[in-house]
């Protein structure tokens, strides 16, 4: 039973990790909190739904949703960040709040505010591993998340683009003087962030099977909590933070009352911000 | 009156001030000079409580300042201006001065009801007098950030004076001023001293320093290398060494 819950927790947690990583990328590279991120996640889920309803196989739907969400995220960069980046830091933040609400309303327009069911597009196979029941959904989610986590991690650590991102996060003027095209870095960072959110959206929809245009609010907030617990700007911290929260959520539902679950998560959020703002693994963002 | 006792300040690995010892009796004009980066503004920041000391203490009229908050230090009678002029940019000239008067009267929730009409009137008259002195009264309703540079400097001094301090710290008050303005500034500083106040100023303009200061303290690389009258300082070997050829005006 315990290990079953653990697997479920890992699965849920890995979706949170993806969302958290998206927040972290933008916060780390651009020192900005993108409150519309959760709603980009929601759009990813719905795009996946739309493609699935068109009969497109899961893997392609996932890819397309990823691209679509990435593009929407670029819109956030263009409208909320780029024109305001020299102003008071609250500017982009407030703008993303407005953009998020815009996305929610557009989503409601397109897909309605009633829950939409996710269609079954792949056969669900189930494997028995000792006392644990693993379905192909588990595997898809875990595998996809793991792949993306490693990919982004390696991209940031080892590639030229990653170096450019890290240089930009240290000091935009210097990076620019060193030949980095910081505007391309901004665009890519937002794209990657959105892509991760988009994938997380589709995967989450596979878990819950029902989505509304307002799921981004909660999931986005949980992702933010994961980011804080892991350490602001710390990519690996975000990964682990997300998984920890997922496991904790599932354990809470299994062994305590489900009602308190969110309270514990947000309570932790608050406590960490006040007493351990650097998170468990250290904040690497220069945001004060 | 102001006692700086064995004060040191570190920023991480960088030592900005190193065991500085200075005693300043009241009602004189003191100058603080030294090459750029010597730690002069840092010393002001320590006195006014904007930064904590890393070692030593500072006493003002017998009271230890080092554990106090900036607003408490101001209420004891110390006011300052800033090297890069920090006014309240969205507030008018008059408001900048008025807000400094808040320490003289009740400015909490009760101030909403404007009960203290008499006290208010007196404060406004004082504010007007200050602004008239500085030649800023005609511009009292303009936003402070729209003023010319020299006017902003004068406003900052007016605001500091509105606090009715016993000790006035001026950080490079003559920076960016022409001959005429500097002359006026010197006259004003003399006036302030004749009101019974003590003035401690940081300056790079040697003609100002030598011309008006009764006593000068010289810092270099965070250490005090000399203190004395203008004549003594001008003859001092280590000062000449630290300065020669660099900061002549």
């Amino acid at each position: 039973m315990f290990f079953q819950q653990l697997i479920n927790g890992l699965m849920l947690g890995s979706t949170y990790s993806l969302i958290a990583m998206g927040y972290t990328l933008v916060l780390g590279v651009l020192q900005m909190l993108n409150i519309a991120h959760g709603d980009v996640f929601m759009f990813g889920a719905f795009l996946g739904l739309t493609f699935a309803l068109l009969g497109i196989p899961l893997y392609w739907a996932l890819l397309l949703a990823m691209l679509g969400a990435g593009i929407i995220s670029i819109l956030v960069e263009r409208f909320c960040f780029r024109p305001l980046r020299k102003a008071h830091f609250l500017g982009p933040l407030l703008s993303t709040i407005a953009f998020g609400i815009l996305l929610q309303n557009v989503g409601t327009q397109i897909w309605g505010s009633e829950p939409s069911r996710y269609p079954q597009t792949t056969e669900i196979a189930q494997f028995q591993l000792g006392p644990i029941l693993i379905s192909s959904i588990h595997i898809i989610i875990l595998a996809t998340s793991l792949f993306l986590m490693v990919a982004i991690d390696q991209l940031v650590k080892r590639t030229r683009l990653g170096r450019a991102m890290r240089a930009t996060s240290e000091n935009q003027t210097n990076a620019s003087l060193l030949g980095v095209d910081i505007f391309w870095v901004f665009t890519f960072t937002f794209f990657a962030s959105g892509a991760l959110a988009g994938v997380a959206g589709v995967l989450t929809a596979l878990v819950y099977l029902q989505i509304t245009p307002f799921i981004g609010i909660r999931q986005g907030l949980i992702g933010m909590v994961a980011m804080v617990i892991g350490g602001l700007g710390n990519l690996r911290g975000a990964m682990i933070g997300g998984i920890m929260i997922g496991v904790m959520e599932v354990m809470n539902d299994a062994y305590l009352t489900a009602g308190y679950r969110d309270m514990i998560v947000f309570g932790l959020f608050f406590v960490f911000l006040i007493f351990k703002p650097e998170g468990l693994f250290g904040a690497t963002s220069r945001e004060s | 009156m102001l006692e700086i006792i064995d004060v040191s300040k570190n920023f991480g690995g960088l030592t900005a001030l190193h065991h500085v010892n200075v005693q300043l009796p009241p009602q004189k004009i003191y100058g603080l000079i030294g090459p750029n980066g010597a730690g002069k503004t840092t010393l002001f920041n320590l006195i006014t409580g904007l930064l904590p000391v890393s070692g030593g203490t500072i006493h003002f009229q017998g009271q230890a300042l080092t554990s106090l908050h900036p607003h408490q230090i101001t209420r004891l009678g110390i006011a300052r201006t800033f090297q890069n002029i920090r006014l309240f940019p969205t507030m008018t000239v008059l408001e900048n001065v008025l807000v400094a008067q808040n320490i003289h009267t009740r400015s909490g929730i009760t101030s909403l009801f404007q009960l203290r009409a008499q006290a208010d009137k007196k404060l406004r008259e004082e504010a007007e007098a200050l602004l008239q002195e500085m030649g800023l009264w005609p511009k009292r309703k303009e936003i402070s950030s729209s003023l010319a540079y020299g006017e902003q400097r004068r406003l900052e001094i007016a605001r500091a004076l509105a606090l009715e301090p016993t000790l006035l710290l001026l950080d490079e008050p003559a920076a960016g001023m022409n001959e005429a303005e500097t002359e006026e500034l010197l006259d004003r500083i003399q006036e302030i001293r004749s009101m019974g106040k003590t003035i401690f100023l940081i300056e790079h303009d040697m003609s100002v320093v030598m011309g008006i200061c009764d006593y000068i303290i010289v810092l270099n690389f965070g250490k005090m290398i000399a203190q004395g009258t203008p004549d003594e300082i001008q003859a001092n070997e280590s000062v000449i060494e630290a300065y020669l050829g660099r900061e002549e005006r």
Partner: protein
Amino acid sequence: MSVYLEGVLALMGINILMALSVYAILTTDQLSLGNAGFMAIGAYTSAYLTVKSGVPLLPAILVGAIASSVMGLLVSIPVLRLKGIYLVMATLGFGEIVRTFFMNFEPTGGAYGFRGPSGATLPLIYGWVLVTIFFFWLLTRSRLGRSLDAVRDDPEVASTVGLHVTLLKIGAFGLGAFIAGVAGALYAHYMFYIESNNFNFLVSAMAILFVILGGMETFWGAVVGAIIFSILPEVLRFMKDWRLSLYGAVLVSMMIFRPSGILTRQMIRDLGERFEGIWRGAGSKDA
């Protein structure tokens, strides 16, 4: 007056109060993303008092607002040590903690919500709105208001002119919480039924949007922004559902092209002077 129109006006009044609660905290350059939490405390406390303890409405509203304010003061102490994004996220976290708390709190219905509070009429709501506006009007012209402006402009320099910056920030928080508490109490007693989801992050976010739209520089901006937001849906009925999307789009554009919002401080200053000139007649006593 039709029930429908009354409903619109009632909610508008509550929106104005929520916008002012955000503005109150913004006066010291802090952004609170959790005012829905303060609203909830005011709502549930006052509702419990009237429904379960038979307390009359007005005292119940006051107690609710005071409870909210006390919570605001308590929370602000640790939270105000934080800077920038951490402060914003902490207020967000607080709002969510309050919401999830009431979702579980049995004595006020838990997940089933709380049924029964009633008695808020349009005159009562607007009575509070007018009192609050009057309060802000007094504040703007007072020494305290000037202190708040200074803290917002440059807290470090404000401390060097003798202002107790931390106390002012805490006070601003308490004020914002109080106003949100009043809004919550009025909301509960108008709607007859409240549940925790009525006080979610979107509510906090919308209040902020009112202020952005109307103008962050003066309290009139918050009032105007809330009014526009509340009335526009009715005026734009013909646009049906796209009008909500329009808000978001308009606000994003505002942040780019006119971040100070509709009403700027200069506008209010000029209007104020013209008004005062008329008021005082020919006598040239300066402001």
